[in-house]
């Protein structure tokens, strides 16, 4: 195929651990769509959560080191599929752009100049870049059986002054994307509500309540699947459904897919190839004969 996209890939820690299937599905889908992903060499922690709440300089240095690594590889675009990574990377780029003093400090720490030519994309932006036409052409399976509630969470969209991505309160970009697969997006209330994020570890009770609200609203609006673009969201919405069930025995389970998994299904890959079998709440498309 001509005009194939070449982009850098910043996996981040989740993609190699709790969100292995996100990594797996992204790589398979990218290959199917003729997109060449180049991993950032010797990447390190993006600086999310622990670093950026404790040490501003450290957090920015961690993020910027990844940008500089990509820069050295000659990459001009780079996808960070994890919403937290995406957020840290662009926020640090922004901070170093507007604070020359900080930039100098980080350059000294990294022993390297920061030119900032690398454009960091989130997962939705990657698909936009690949092109709706291209995705649509590659679809081999109509996912019309899916009524999907797209969940954006917080880090994909905010702070909107920096992300410049979609509407922070009424986003629609994921919906537009999944329509290409025949799946039907549902109109629901909690696309951007908080899932509890990292409280998942220390205050499971909070996450159980918050995630339940989100899942219930999706179900109430007719969704039979949720689509997410963030490993943390996935952990809270999928993995924590067990705990939710324990707390609320009447809870109705709903499968949670990564955006890349849903697109992968439409491109004809099976659940296993995409790692969907690794999820807590089981999901399978209806068999052709059924």
């Amino acid at each position, binding site marked *: 195929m001509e005009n194939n996209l070449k982009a850098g890939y910043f996996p981040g820690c989740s993609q190699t651990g709790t969100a292995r299937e996100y990594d797996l599905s992204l790589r398979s889908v990218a290959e199917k769509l003729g997109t060449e992903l180049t991993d950032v060499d010797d990447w390190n922690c993006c600086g999310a959560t622990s670093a950026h709440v404790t040490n501003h300089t450290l957090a920015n240095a961690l993020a910027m080191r990844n940008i500089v690594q990509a820069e050295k590889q000659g990459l001009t675009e780079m996808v960070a599929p994890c919403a937290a990574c995406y957020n840290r990377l662009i926020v640090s780029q922004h901070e170093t752009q507007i604070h020359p003093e900080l930039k100098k400090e980080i350059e000294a720490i990294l022993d390297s100049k920061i030119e900032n030519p690398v454009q960091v994309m989130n997962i939705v932006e990657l698909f936009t870049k690949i092109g709706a036409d291209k995705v649509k052409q590659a679809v081999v399976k109509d996912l019309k059986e899916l009524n999907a509630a797209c969940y954006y969470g917080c880090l994909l969209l905010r702070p*909107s002054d920096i992300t410049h991505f979609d*509407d*922070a*309160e*009424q986003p629609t970009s994921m919906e537009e994307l999944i329509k290409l697969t025949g799946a039907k997006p549902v109109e629901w*209330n*909690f696309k951007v*509500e908080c899932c509890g994020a990292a409280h998942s570890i220390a205050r499971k009770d909070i996450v159980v309540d918050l995630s339940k609200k989100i899942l219930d*609203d999706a179900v*109430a609006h007719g969704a039979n699947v949720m689509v997410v673009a963030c490993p943390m969201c996935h952990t809270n919405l999928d993995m924590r459904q067990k705990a939710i069930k324990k707390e609320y025995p009447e809870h109705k389970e709903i499968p949670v897919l990564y955006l890349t998994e849903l697109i992968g299904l439409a491109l004809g890959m099976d659940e296993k190839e995409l790692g969907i079998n690794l999820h807590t709440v089981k999901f399978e498309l209806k068999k052709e004969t059924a």
Partner: protein
Amino acid sequence: MKIGVFICHCGENIGRTVDCPRVSKAAEWFPGVVHSVDYKYMCSDPGQNMIKDAIREKGLDAIVVGSCSPHMHEKTFRKAALDAGINPFLCEMANLREHVSWVHDDIEEATQKAIDLTRMAVEKVKRNQPLATIKVPVTKRTLVIGGGIAGIQAALDVANAGYEVVLVEKEPSIGGHMSQLSETFPTLDCSQCILTPRMVEVYQHPKIKLMTYSEVEKVEGFIGNFHVTIRQKARHIDASKCTGCGLCITKCPIRKKAFNSFEEGMAYRPAVYVPFPQAVPNIPVIDETVCTYYKNGKCGVCVKVCGREAIMFDQQDKLVTEEIGAIIMATGYKLYDISKKPDDSFIKGYGEYGYGKYKDVIDGLQFERIASASGPTSGEFKRPSDGKEPKKVVFIQCVGSRDDSKGFSYCSKICCMYTAKHAMLYKHKVHDGEAYVFYMDIRSGGKMYEEFVRRAIEEDGVKYVRGRVSKVYEQNGKYIVKGEDTIAGMPVEIEADMVVLATAMIAQENASTLAQTVGIPYDKYGFFNEAHPKLRPIESTTGGIFLAGACQSPKDIPESVAMASAAAAKTMVLFGSDMLEREPVVARVNELLCGGCFYCRKVCPYSAIEVREIKDRNGVVIKEVAYVNDGLCQGCGTCTATCPSKSVELMGFTNEQIFAQIAAL
């Protein structure tokens, strides 16, 4: 030349930081200075007398006063000079307060600077020329732009004083937003009842020329002498024949194609309509965009029913010119539109409240229409989605106001009051209903205003929750309002049947374009700027153009009316004399030197530069030169800085004067 120097202590204001006696001593030695003194209050009567006596006794030709800013007292001291018999423009000031004592601490350095500034002023005054004030004639007619309550009041006041008024309103009827209101705070009197008599008075006033469905297209000229071009949009009705019987309106078959903007989109109107039954003038307009006749030439029902043959499908817009002496801007405000995603980058909008997704999330003006006896529900509380009576209504204040991150930084000022009014009106009609108000602070300064809000809380049982709302969403037919009660320190969720957003009052759609057409400055939000926030709040910085009502900033009715009467008074001050006097600080072209490049014309922000032909004895044009219109020139000096041949000078600030000043430093 004999020059006198007078150094003022301004009480302690200057004296604290500047050693005034030393400045006055130093000035004695400046070449040309024959007299130098210091005094505690030079602007006081004894101070002024010191100046006058010195001029007379010492035969001074020019004076320098070292005191405050010329903005403050230049007029005072020039008057003193004139009284003592010298040309007032031979009085210069050195600003020892704003430029020295108020901004420096070090006495030694400040004193040195004061001496320098005084020396500079002395060098300038030596080169001052006696100047004479400029006189221009005045056309005693007023143009009022905008026919809301402010425009109506201003027009009536000016007309009742005996001067002619042209009132231009862009809508088919005058009345503005006040005509949409149900009852008005703080007395709850019916808005229409107090407004319509004034509208009729305007219509019938022999001194007022009312031009509705019209807009100002061009303003030329200057204070006392404006030439204004007004576009009268085609109504497609012959106003001289129409009796306002309304038959065309009731028979028009187009019933559901156009939203009724007077009802804030909660009803439809026909293709031929008057905005509301009490409209002034009571002459309909035909809306070309929905009328069938303009689509396919068919229909014409209105033509058939009109007994007066007043329908004129082929009527065209008309341009009218008027000679005007003073202009009053009264174009009002609009509400920030919650129903759509904002497209300008200034404001990010409030997607969390739904962007018009929910029919029962409405704004204040929609609420006014629901509460109004003449509104789409005849004043019964019925919500737009299903016509049911809402039993729980949540009011959210400051939507778009006081919000640096998503909206406008300013306070819209009146929403605290009208929200209290709304909640009260609701409780008066729905006795078993509950009303909640989310607020940041309650700002109810004004006569009987705080009492009014207390009444809503204490007598009518409106529940006030201090905090912001983060989200409104629909669940099982209810609107869930999620917010924070910052006093209880807890999140709250209210299941409401209707939500009313007190959205920001913002500048009219094309306020900035109009400001440019008329030639007045506006702020970053599009509100027109006053000349001085405290001492000249009614005047724009352009001579002869005054401001009234909410076009200057958010305002309620009493304030708008007060401002309108003040603007009317200002025009009468202007009309008090037949000739206008103004300061002679204007540019002058040396016609011998001027090469006619007209760069000055390009840069002049006031369009004050004209082309003048120089002719020889036989009347043959030998060259064109620039010529400054004294009435328009504001003395900014841009032309003098631009002129490549240095042939244009600003009177009172000539190059020679300025360079002498600099050289003295």
